[in-house]
């Protein structure tokens, strides 16, 4: 039976003793089993979860419970989990059982959270629909014929379907925000460097950032508090401590609407939802102004050049020598490489590897990779300048609502899904998607982008909105 309480609500129930973590975990495991058709999970760890739940109940009995103690959560199958298979949605790692935990997993373990399983995802996080997974597509709980978005599609679908109270995802160009928008849940991509990348399988190192997906902004805030923090094992981890305080009330917020984002938004009904949200912020006393981010139109090509370049070399380690897929009876070393990699990687991954190899190779490096890094600076700087005038940017998360599985077969068209999310990724900014409307029985998301390390501004704006609206409480199968 699906459970649509928020993480904060469930934590109160655990505190009050009306339910134990073991009972909660049993319910969650049975809900996951019932919802197998969604294909949200690659691996479910029943016994391990119940053992963790028992430990969590003991801990709570001793009065040592933290905010997430005993709460069943899931991890995108990109986070390495000691002793539990970590596939990254790829045949290459279909049997890979890491002997170590990701820092994110260690932090949640230390806080007493219960891991119920590993969620489905686009292969190596490359995709915007969860259709590139070696383990098959994930279905959107709001309409099983539609995609849940990607690449953290399994994580978003599991939260939206009431299978777990939260899931940790990763976001390189929109992989938390877009599926959150498509499934009607809340998702946060923190500032680059906030959450350790140690033990998180790399896609594009200068863009990858882990983050939570949950049913409310308050939940995101709690999860962010657990996951974020300095990690000496990640050289790009920020040494700045997380300040749990929210410093500005909603009526002191200055909210910017980047005109280029709205100009690029073709779907009028999505635009109408965003407009309603804008009006709500104005009525709540926030100052709403129009701003301009002129390089928005080159964000997608810039992103795909940078991300593919980094990915092409990050994926070189999968060579069939030390772990991962190895072809049968290799003739020689070249054959071992060629066949292991060709069999182990899917089409989209190969496409990105080839693109990245091209843009880094002699003769093209300056025109593509280096040029993209220059444009990246322009994009970042124009965000930073804009944040001198505003606290938060309000934009659509996606150009439209969730599309049918198989509807977007052209890769270049698929990349356009990321038009509103890649800017914040390139600039390393925190960005959040929360539900703000409903079109054709499907959720619409809005994106809030903050300045570097300004997650608390996003929590202020998002939580105020959710206290006054009920978009985030709508469940699949209960259309308004």
């Amino acid at each position, binding site marked *: 039976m699906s459970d649509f309480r928020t993480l904060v609500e469930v934590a109160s129930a655990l505190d009050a003793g009306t339910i134990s973590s073991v009972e909660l975990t049993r319910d969650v495991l049975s809900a996951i089993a019932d919802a197998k058709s969604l294909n949200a999970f690659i691996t479910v760890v029943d016994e391990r979860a119940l053992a963790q739940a028992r430990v969590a109940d003991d801990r709570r009995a001793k009065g040592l419970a933290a905010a997430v103690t005993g709460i069943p959560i899931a991890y995108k199958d990109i986070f390495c989990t000691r002793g539990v298979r970590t596939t*990254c949605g790829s045949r290459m790692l279909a049997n890979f059982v890491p002997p170590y935990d990701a820092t994110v997993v260690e932090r949640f373990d230390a806080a007493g959270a219960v891991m119920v399983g590993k969620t489905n995802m686009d292969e190596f996080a490359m995709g915007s629909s969860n259709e590139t997974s070696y383990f098959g597509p994930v279905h959107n709980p709001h309409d099983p014929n539609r995609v849940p978005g990607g690449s953290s599609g399994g994580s978003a679908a599991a939260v939206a379907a009431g299978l777990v109270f939260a899931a940790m995802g990763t976001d390189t160009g929109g992989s938390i925000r877009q599926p959150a928008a498509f499934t009607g849940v809340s998702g946060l991509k923190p500032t680059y460097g906030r959450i350790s990348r140690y033990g998180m399988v790399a896609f594009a190192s200068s863009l990858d950032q882990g983050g939570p997906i949950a049913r409310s902004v308050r939940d995101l805030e709690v999860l962010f508090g657990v996951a974020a923090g300095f990690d000496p094992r990640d050289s790009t981890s920020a040494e700045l401590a997380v300040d749990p305080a929210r410093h500005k009330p909603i009526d002191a917020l200055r909210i910017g609407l980047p005109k280029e984002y709205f100009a690029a938004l073709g779907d009028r009904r999505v635009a109408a939802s965003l407009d309603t949200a804008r009006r709500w912020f104005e009525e709540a006393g926030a100052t709403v102004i129009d701003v301009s981010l002129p390089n928005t139109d080159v964000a997608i090509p810039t992103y795909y050049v940078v991300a593919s370049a980094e990915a092409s070399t990050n994926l070189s380690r999968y060579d069939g020598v*030390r772990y991962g897929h190895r072809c049968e009876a290799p003739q020689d070393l070249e054959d071992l490489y060629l066949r292991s990699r060709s069999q182990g990687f899917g089409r989209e991954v190969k496409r990105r590897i080839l693109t990245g190899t091209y843009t880094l190779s002699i003769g093209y490096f300056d025109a593509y990779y280096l040029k993209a890094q220059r444009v990246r600076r322009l994009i970042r700087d124009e965000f930073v300048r804009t944040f001198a005038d505003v606290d938060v940017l309000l934009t659509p998360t996606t150009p439209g609502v969730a599309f049918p599985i198989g509807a977007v077969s052209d890769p270049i068209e698929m990349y356009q899904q990321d038009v509103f999310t890649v800017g914040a990724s390139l600039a390393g900014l925190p960005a959040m998607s929360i539900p703000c409307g409903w079109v054709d029985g499907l959720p619409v998301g809005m994106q809030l982008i903050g300045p570097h390390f300004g997650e608390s501004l996003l929590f202020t704006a998002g939580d105020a909105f959710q206290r006054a609206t009920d978009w985030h409480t709508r469940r699949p199968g209960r259309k308004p």
Partner: protein
Amino acid sequence: MTWDVVIGLEVHVQLATRSKIFSGASASFGAEPNSQACAIDLAMPGMLPVLNADAVRMAATFGLAIDAELPAESVFDRKNYFYPDLPKGYQISQFERPIVGRGHLDLKLPGGGVRRIGITRAHLEEDAGKSLHEDFAGMTGIDLNRAGMPLLEVVSEPELRSAAEAAAYFRQIHVLVRYLGICDGNLNEGSMRCDANVSVRKSPSDPLGVRTEIKNLNSFRFLERAIEHEVARQIELIEAGGTVVRETLLYDPDRDETRPMRSKELSEDYRYFPEPDLLPVVLDTAQLDALRQGLPELPNAKRARFERDLALSAYDAEWLTSDPDVARYYEAVAATAGDPKLAANWVMGEWSAAMNRDAARTSPLAAEQLGRLIVRIKDGTISGKIAKTLFDALWKDPNKTVDDLIEAEDLTQVSDTAALAALVADVIRDNPEQVGQYRAGKTKVLGFFVGQLMKATQGKANPQALNELLKDALAEVRDR
């Protein structure tokens, strides 16, 4: 005709850190295969590099020692290529912005004189593992213990003019890094390796000829032989009407020949780009000032000081400063002995012979003991002959002290004139034939008397006192 030979060297200096350059795995030598390759060295999914502070300190120290420009910021790059002993499929190195910029080395030329050799740059990088081609059922075995070992690659300008000069340069770098304490200098364990770029041309005014690169030379002798061989090969080739092809060669010391490396046939496109998992390395002025303060006295300065202040010959000064451990030992001996020249004789003589005989890495005999032994020679307590016996005794039993042994073995020199005079009288009385010879002018016979007397005193007679007494006594006999 004579040919102009142009050689540039790339010397790989393995830095003497405890742990690897990007991981906390042990950097000690000689462990079981793959027992020092941690998850980071194995390029497991999600693993990240974190730079070793001591590797940076050592590189900067080297830069200061060669008067190099040290840029405020240096950057790590990925050098991409597939090889089974390169786990990530890229080597983390420095390409565009190395940690050490342009510097120089004042090379003591083999034929005398000094020439300043430009050092283009020195950069930090990680070593690869080892491929073992012994037959494992027709396969190659990979040991990754060496993967991630810290290397400083020192690149010279093509300013070396002969194989002998190249070997002298390699030697001088070897001495320098040992003085700086940044490398153990152990060539047998591969702690220093060298690649040589070699070309020839008919005249120094001609443009540079096509060069070949000889890889992985790990001894001074091999380096010299390989270059000699390659120079001869190139000249022979050109004189026969052929042209030199740019290629990478391996030197086979058993056959004394170079052969092309099969694995390097494919001209690689390394696709260098900034390593996104690492941030720019900053060397600030305060840090550099502190390192400069802490620099040890360098070989050239020490040699000059030994000649100037200790009045040693150029030969002795050169000999004693060619190894920092020897120089340190010598200085301690000389300080205790209070006689630099005598100390030099002992260190270069008995001590060095004993070290070589036992192939000792560290001296079993403390420098202070050797110094005290010399003091006892100088103050007349023991004879030089006895000192040699004592040296051997001390070498075998380092727990004894010089004075203990002198006392225990009753080795104190007999300087008591009355006692010696009695012995002298006895010897003269017992050997009338020799006395007759002496009186006939054969003064060489004096040695016979000394020998007899030393025998009688078991070598303990003070030779000076003995000589005087003997001469006086013989004169008396003659006068009679």
